[in-house]
């Protein structure tokens, strides 16, 4: 029986329909042609998208100006990732579309790699060229010798292509160069990886502990927003960082730790929480495994012990541990995101996970919530063929806990080596500038030189395109459809990306490229829909929506299947670990032959006259991807090297002066970098923002500006558990004599 409220709603809808009809009649009578009407609608309308400037993928609306040109992007208020507020990079995403340095036409190499000798080609030519090469490589070496590196939405379609051909090698630098150790550690502890966006209930937390995470400088939008909410609510923030980060400036406690000693601090915190019995006893008893082992393990790891290592005052270690316990379970020891630092990163993140477990924050309000991801049916296609071999066979007994393809693993396996039989022969690189992403550039180049085919798909002439055999110019996210965004969050949501403009120049969406290649390679049945919009409409109709509806709303929110954002009191939770419990003592690590509980090991320290090279993010840039974006270079067009005044005095450095940096292996920065003398950095390290010092002249706005940290990271500390590439074990010194060198500014 319809209630009165429903009746009113139905009536209102009826009235609305009548009015829309009347408006339609008026429009018809106004003498506009259909074309004119379409233009008018396009001009006044807004189109939904989700952002591609970083991995957070906030959903928003693209607005055009009177001339129909893309003008601005504003967050969709329904979206949980952004709550209607884009970050500077998302707002500046328009610059990606307007950048006049964009790749414009498909390019085919005419000379040696690295010589920038390309000819413009038609799409047909480029596709034929690639398909021909892939056919030969597949026949000779097997399809497994084709690998994909991806950090972008378009990777999805190339991934389908590769799997259809029979290669499992889909690698994302976001794993082994970024958050891999964290995922492995949380998997080992709670039986679940954290994924993206992380399920952190920051808005309701009473205590946020940031250890090496510079939230606010990394603009992980939702988290920055919630940190601000937490500040409003009076939450305590504890920041551990050798640098006085922006977040440290908002913290009740800033622990200016000696670099590379975080694990000792974490263990000391665990020690205090156990020895002072501050842990959540019922929670630990009910949900965890191995508490007694842990207690025994950390027995001697007292704050006094940690003081000698970390230089943090023992009373501060105790006080901060008590702050956490007082706030528990509404406390978050932030797991961070870019955590590949010293090669023992999985173990450090294990300590973070254990600390959270002791405080009972997992599954609790103000701690870690349980996410839900919307289940969207995939378009129907035949089963993928089973690959005959994988990269893993090339690394026996190594990286046993890696649960995905390692970008650096594929790279290493590509470098000719008599001990390996599967050499990779072809790479497809989509939306990731491997030259700036993978440490040890020399090694990357060795691998590239050994390839038979390197296809790069990008919107910008990034350094990696210079090494490609074929460059495929992708249109930006503002000019294409992509798969629906179905990331995990408090509520299941889907978000649509639809084009706000026709692709500029001769660019195409990745979907089209992958499908055209699939056509030529005889695997078209894996791409049942000719157009992305048809696939989206089909998918949406399976779940009771449609493309038309999504174009109007952009984001659709669904109810959770269960009201289980947090654990119920006394809920019996089954964790996906071997013991079914939160493993303080990890059986998985033990089984793989690693320490079941984290141990502190000392890391190499800078030699005299050298300083540890730390790097991080600026809120207005995403990796090296945005450094040529006109709107964002306007905010920051070069990086600087932060130097403590004591060090500056010793070297006679002053703010604004340009210097070269040289690392422990004699590697010199390609370009000089500006000095910033600041109290915000410790005397034993220097700091710079990642993503500058571009060497590709076609990037006219950012070429030669600032220095590249990747360039100076020649020493890589590999995590034996999962192959993560630790990048914070490099040390640099200054060269102040630029000897007439020209500074690009």
């Amino acid at each position, binding site marked *: 029986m319809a209630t009165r409220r429903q009746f009113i709603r139905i009536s209102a809808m009826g009235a609305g329909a009548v009015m829309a009809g009347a408006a339609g009649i008026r429009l018809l009578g106004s003498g506009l042609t259909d074309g004119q009407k379409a233009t008018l609608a396009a001009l006044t309308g807004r189109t939904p998208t989700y952002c591609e400037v970083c991995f957070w993928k906030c959903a928003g609306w693209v607005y055009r100006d009177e001339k129909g040109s893309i003008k601005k992007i504003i967050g969709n208020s329904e979206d949980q990732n952004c709550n209607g507020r884009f970050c500077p990079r998302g707002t500046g995403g328009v610059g990606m579309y307007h950048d006049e340095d964009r790749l414009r036409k498909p390019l085919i190499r005419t000379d040696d790699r690295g010589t920038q000798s390309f000819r413009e080609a038609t799409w047909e030519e480029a596709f034929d060229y690639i398909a021909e090469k892939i056919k030969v490589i597949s026949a000779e070496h097997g399809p497994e010798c084709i690998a994909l590196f991806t950090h972008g939405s378009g990777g999805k379609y190339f991934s389908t292509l590769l799997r259809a051909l029979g290669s499992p090698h889909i690698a994302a630098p976001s794993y082994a160069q970024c958050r891999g150790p964290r995922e492995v550690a949380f998997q080992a502890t709670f039986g679940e990886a954290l994924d993206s966006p992380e399920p952190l209930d920051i808005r309701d937390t009473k205590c946020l502990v940031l250890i090496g995470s510079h939230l606010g400088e990394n603009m992980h939008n939702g988290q920055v927003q919630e940190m601000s909410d937490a500040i409003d609510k009076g939450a305590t923030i504890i920041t551990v960082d050798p640098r006085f980060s922006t977040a440290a400036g908002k913290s009740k406690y800033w622990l200016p730790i000696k670099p590379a000693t975080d694990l000792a601090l974490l263990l000391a915190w665990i020690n205090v929480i156990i020895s002072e019995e501050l842990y959540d006893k019922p929670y630990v008893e009910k949900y965890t495994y191995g508490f007694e082992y842990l207690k025994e393990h950390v027995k001697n790891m007292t704050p006094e012990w940690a003081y000698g290592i970390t230089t943090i005052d023992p009373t501060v270690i105790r006080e901060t541990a008590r702050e956490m316990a007082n706030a528990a379970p509404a406390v978050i020891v932030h797991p961070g995101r870019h955590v590949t630092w010293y090669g023992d990163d999985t173990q450090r993140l294990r300590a973070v996970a254990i600390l959270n477990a002791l405080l009972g924050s997992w599954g609790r309000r103000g701690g870690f919530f349980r996410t839900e991801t919307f289940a969207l049916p995939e378009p129907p296609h035949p089963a993928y063929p089973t690959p005959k071999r994988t990269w893993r066979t090339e690394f026996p007994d190594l990286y046993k806990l890696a649960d995905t393809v390692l970008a650096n693993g594929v790279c290493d396996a590509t470098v000719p080596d008599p001990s390996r039989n599967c050499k990779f022969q072809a790479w497809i690189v989509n939306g990731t500038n491997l030259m700036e992403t993978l440490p040890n550039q020399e090694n990357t180049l060795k691998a590239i030189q050994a390839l038979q085919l390197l296809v790069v798909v990008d919107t910008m002439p990034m350094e990696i395109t210079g090494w490609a055999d074929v460059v495929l110019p992708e249109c930006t996210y503002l000019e294409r459809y992509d798969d629906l965004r179905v990331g995990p969050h408090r509520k299941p949501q889907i978000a649509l990306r639809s084009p706000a403009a026709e692709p500029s120049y001769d660019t195409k969406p990745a979907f089209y490229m992958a499908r055209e290649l699939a056509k030529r390679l005889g695997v078209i049945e894996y791409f049942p829909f000719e157009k992305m919009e048809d696939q989206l409409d089909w998918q949406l109709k399976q779940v009771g929506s449609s493309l038309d509806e999504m174009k109007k709303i952009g984001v659709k929110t669904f109810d959770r299947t269960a009201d289980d954002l947090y654990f119920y009191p006394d809920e019996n939770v089954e964790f996906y670990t071997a013991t079914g419990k939160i493993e303080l003592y990890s059986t998985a690590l033990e089984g793989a032959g690693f320490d079941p509980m984290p141990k502190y090991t000392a890391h190499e320290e800078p030699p005299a006259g050298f300083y540890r090279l730390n790097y991080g993010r600026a809120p*207005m840039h995403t990796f090296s991807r945005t450094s040529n974006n006109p709107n964002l270079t306007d*905010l*920051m*067009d070069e990086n600087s090297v932060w130097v403590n005044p004591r060090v500056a005095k010793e070297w006679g450095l002053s703010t604004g002066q340009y210097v070269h940096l040289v690392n422990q292996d004699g590697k010199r920065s390609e370009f000089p970098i500006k000095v910033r003398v*600041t*109290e915000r950095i410790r005397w034993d390290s220097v700091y710079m923002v990642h993503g500058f010092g571009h060497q590709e002249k076609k990037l006219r706005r950012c070429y030669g500006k600032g220095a590249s940290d990747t360039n100076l990271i020649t020493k890589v500390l590999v995590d034996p558990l999962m192959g993560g590439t630790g990048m914070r074990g490099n040390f640099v010194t200054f060269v102040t004599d630029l000897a007439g060198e020209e500074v690009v500014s």
Partner: protein
Amino acid sequence: MNEELIISGRENLMVDPQLHIWHWPIPLYLFLGGLAAGVLFFAALYYLLGKEEQYRAAVRRVPFIAPVALVLGLAALFYDLNHKAFFWQLYTTIRIQSPMSWGAWTLLVITTASFIWCALHIREFFPRWDWKYKWLKDIEVFFNKNKKPLAWVILIFAIITGVYTGILLSAFNARPLWNTSVLGPLFLASGLSAGAASIVLASKNREERLLFTKIDLIILGTELFLIVHMFMGFLASTQVQQEAAQLFLGGPYTMVFWIFVVVLGIIIPGVLDLMELWGKHIPALIPGVLVLMGSFAFRFVFVFAGQVSRWLY
């Protein structure tokens, strides 16, 4: 250590890293305006004192500099405008609180008056000058009859123009270096001394030269007094004004100010003037040119340094 940074990459042209909205045409314009004011002031003054015949150069000949200087000055001002096509908007309103506005009107009056004054004395240079048209002749007759009121207008507006070039700057409290009421009298004095120096340079009459050398000396002394006065004011004032004074007391403008403005522009010509009065024969060219250059340098230094002085960052 205190570190203050704009971290959003602000690089507004002509504003960052430090204000530079006014370029060389502005001090040039201020100098030419001041010079014209000085020249016209003495012309009108000695005419009104009934000394037209005695001081012919001052009253009749030197004023010919004025319209040329004013037109050049206005051209320089126009050149430095960023939105030139809308120049005429200046003359659609009078805004009493805006020195720029009443200055524009003042310039209109004084430029017109200076042209008329010169027209009345054109036969000084072209004895057989003929205006050809009757209406022009009528105008000449009219102003010859009313030369006294005209001289009064010139006298008053010359003072306003001279003061205005200083007030234009001193009205900006955003630029601590400019923000001193001494600047009006100082600019007037500088303009008058430039005017007096021009007369000394142009006059062939020894009596006239000596008179204007005396006048010049008095004005230079006054200038020196005003400069000392100005620094005393700055140093006894707020922090930003103390900092502004430092631009000349050890800061980047120290050398150019003390050497070109004070020593070469005031002290040396003053000493030379004194020697001339004591009977030593000094070529008039040297102190005259030095005073003009000093007056010019003074405006340059002040316009440029003033833009550097600031409250923030």
